């Protein structure tokens, strides 16, 4: 039935259910224009005007992260980042948070291997006060002994709780298997042993050496004017100075990890699987080809691995692969949680898919087109909110990418060919080097693992990191 009042709409819509409609012409999109100023102390101030909603997102990015932890002091960078909001001057930790709460601020700190960041988003009428608080947090934290003891204790408790989470156990142990003593071999939180040995003086020294203006970028996105933000930043951060300078992390040899490893978890209903090896750094010239390859292999719902393990076999709620791009070579890895009884088959299928895309079953034209379209047609979507734009701009600052990086992304991805996908996967992913880790029920899956032809599984203790 068709309603009689449809005539009130002038446009005629012809419905044809025999085929899917084609998209209309793509609308042009201007990527954010970044205005840049460097303050005399070396702090870079980058702003993007995005005035649709009266809010402003600040991100202070520091180009030092968990990979800057000195050997034996794993967890120091993260603990230092965690202590930044524990008060400043004579303001206590609670008073600091009350000040943020009075602005209705969203406040967060984050840490990765290569960076630490502090972010504050507020209604734009609070921009100046928010920036002053951000400077107190990052440049002038109190770093008191009593707060240190409490924060470290909470982190030790957190480590205890993380032992209960099979996905976290798998992630942490897998890093250790792949990287050993390399700066990427530990997760930012560190370990019980390293945290217990830390002192508040370690935190103070790390803050002085690593959190300093010449390795930092202040990014402001929202309802703001560049010169106004620069003035506010000069007021808030002008006295901040490089106190000392840290050196680059000491990069050790990568270990040779056994092919199959298991951390027993008795009666686990699922096995957490990690399969991968150390691959490429962010500055690889093959970046765009690798992300296309990953999209087809395991980077989206309709990827080969998810369609196989979830939609065909029903083994899992979801499977994915990724290249983790960092300054130094990051891991290529597959992450999936599968029902216990399907563990060995899931490993076999996963390794089969990884090996297949390198040549035996190269990407088809249809897969290539779909992968490129998925990465490019929706690209503008990542530039909708102030926080999203700030995160995108942080990537430019973190990896020294050019200002026209966003504008070039779509054409770069569109230039990727099927041959290139095969080449980069053959070059950067090697099935014979893959390491597999299982966190699961050894009694149930152990016997099946032998049938994989990968040798006997190495049984690791549950705190193998």
């Amino acid at each position, binding site marked *: *039935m068709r309603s009689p009042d449809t005539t009130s709409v002038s446009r005629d819509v012809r419905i044809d259910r025999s085929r899917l409609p084609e998209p209309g012409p793509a609308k042009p999109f201007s990527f954010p224009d970044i205005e840049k100023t460097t303050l005399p102390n070396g702090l870079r101030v980058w702003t993007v005007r995005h005035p649709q909603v009266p809010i402003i997102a600040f991100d202070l990015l520091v180009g030092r992260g968990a990979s800057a932890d000195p050997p034996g002091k794993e967890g120091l960078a993260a603990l230092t980042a965690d202590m930044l909001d524990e008060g400043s001057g004579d303001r206590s930790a609670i008073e600091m948070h009350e000040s943020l709460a009075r602005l209705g601020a969203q406040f967060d700190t984050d840490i990765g291997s290569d960076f630490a960041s502090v972010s504050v988003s507020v209604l734009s009428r609070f921009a100046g006060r928010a920036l002053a608080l951000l400077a107190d947090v990052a440049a002038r934290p109190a770093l008191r002994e009593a707060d240190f003891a409490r924060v470290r204790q909470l982190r030790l408790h957190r480590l205890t709780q993380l032992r209960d989470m099979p996905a976290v156990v798998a992630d942490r142990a897998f890093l250790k298997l792949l990287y050993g003593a390399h700066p990427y071999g530990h997760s930012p939180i560190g370990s019980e042993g390293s945290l217990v040995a830390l002192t508040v003086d370690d935190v103070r020294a790390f803050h002085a050496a690593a959190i300093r203006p010449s390795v930092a970028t202040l990014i402001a996105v929202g309802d703001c004017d560049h010169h106004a933000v620069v003035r506010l930043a000069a007021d808030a951060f002008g006295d901040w100075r490089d106190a000392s300078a840290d050196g680059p992390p000491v990069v050790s040899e990568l270990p040779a990890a056994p092919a199959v490893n298991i951390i027993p978890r008795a009666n686990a209903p699922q096995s957490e699987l990690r399969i991968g090896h150390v691959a490429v750094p962010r500055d690889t010239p093959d970046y765009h080809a690798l992300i296309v390859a990953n999209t087809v292999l395991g980077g989206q719902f309709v990827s080969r691995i998810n369609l196989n393990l979830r939609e065909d076999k029903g083994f899992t709620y979801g499977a994915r692969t990724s290249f983790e791009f960092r300054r130094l070579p990051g891991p290529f890895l597959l992450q999936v949680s599968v029902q216990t009884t399907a563990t060995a088959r899931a490993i076999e299928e996963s390794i089969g898919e990884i090996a297949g895309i390198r040549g035996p079953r190269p990407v088809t034209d249809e897969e290539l087109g779909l992968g490129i379209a998925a990465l490019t047609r929706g690209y503008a979507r990542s530039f909708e909110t102030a926080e999203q734009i700030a995160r995108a701009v942080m990537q430019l600052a973190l990896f020294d990418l050019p200002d026209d990086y966003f504008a070039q992304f779509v054409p770069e991805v569109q230039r990727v060919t099927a041959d290139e996908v095969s080449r980069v996967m053959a070059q950067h992913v090697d099935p014979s080097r893959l390491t597999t880790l299982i966190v699961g029920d050894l009694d149930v899956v152990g016997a099946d693992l032998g049938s994989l032809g990968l040798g006997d599984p190495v049984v690791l203790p549950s705190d193998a990191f």
Partner: protein
Amino acid sequence: MTLSFAKHTLANGLDVLLHEDHTCPIVAVNLWYHVGSKNEHPGHTGFAHLFEHLMFEGSEHHDRGYFKPLQGAGATLNGSTNADRTNYWEVVPSNTLELALWMESDRMGYLLPALTQAKFTNQRDVVLNERRQNYENRPYGLAPMALLSALFRPDHPYHWTTIGEVADLHAAQLDEVQAFFRRYYHPGNASLALAGDLDPEEALALARGYFEDLEPGEPADPVDAPAPLASDVRIFFEDRVEVPRLYIAWLTPAMFAEGDADLDLGTDLLANGKTSRLYRRLVFEERIATDVSAAQNSREIAGYTQITATAAPGHTLGELEGAIMEEVARLAADGPTADEIERGRVQAESQFMFRLQTVGGFGGKSDQLNAYNVFLGDPAYFDRDLARYHDVTGESLQGAIARYLAASPRVTLSIVPRGRVPLAAPDSERVAVS
């Protein structure tokens, strides 16, 4: 601050909501069906959510995966089921709106001809794995099962979780899918919101073109809410965890009802963030807990407020319970400070403004318009929703805490490490959960 829109109701009962925002060349398509796990019955739990999975497996005129054409067009998409509603959304480049409407209308009108036993069995297995991953193999993952079944009587539609019982999922049959689809998945029980870089006239014409021919149906019947919790319930179970965790929950007003906003702000000032009373006392000063949080979980026919705290090693859940209940009683007796009320208000204002930034996805503007339309019949509710928080006073907040928390029966759930039963709150009874 406002969220502008136009509302049209098609002849078959489908509500179409349109909102223009040209910030980014994208359009959000957001479709709600007014059905959730509250429409299920004991023995058939988990069905609404399992059904949601089947909506992604193809329909009569596109009997292949739902994701492929949309991801290939640059869309992101998802769906979710809760107790009260099921939603489906796509965020597409604005030149691709028609594709999303084609796909959504095809599965609304023509799902059943494409449904097979093989798809049903496969997605049942996927859901069983979702349950293993997110509940069974996760520390404290079975807490919702224990809490909801204690808070709500067996004949209350919130007695069970949306993921459902394992036995019920195994027992689910294909023919139930057909009946469920006919009962709930039709234009009269749905609301379609389109938000973003669109021309309202053109978008409405497309929506009419794709949806207005679909068969109408009756909105779902309201669901009864049987009597509330009569007395305190104290329960515990052992789990594969290193440290014990305490949950305290009370029945509270439904979403948008009197007292809901008071409890929202009240739980924030009690236990959310480092400035909250319970964080300050339990984590910062006494150090008997490692974390504490609280929320007013507002649902359509009832709400429940929950406080959760994890004990620091060496401390029992009884200690945590004592401190938490003292702070609840103190807030009920003395009310909040002026500063706490002021912070709560400005935080609410900020949160509402942050939400206005995005057109799609969970919680974006299209999702909000549908929430107001489906639960209140009034998509214009955004301003009044914010006003509910501005209108909270020290007295109203104190009154809500006193009435619904301090003076009401509660469920106290302890989850303790295996073999460490004495860590549970005193006088708790063991319950079996799975």
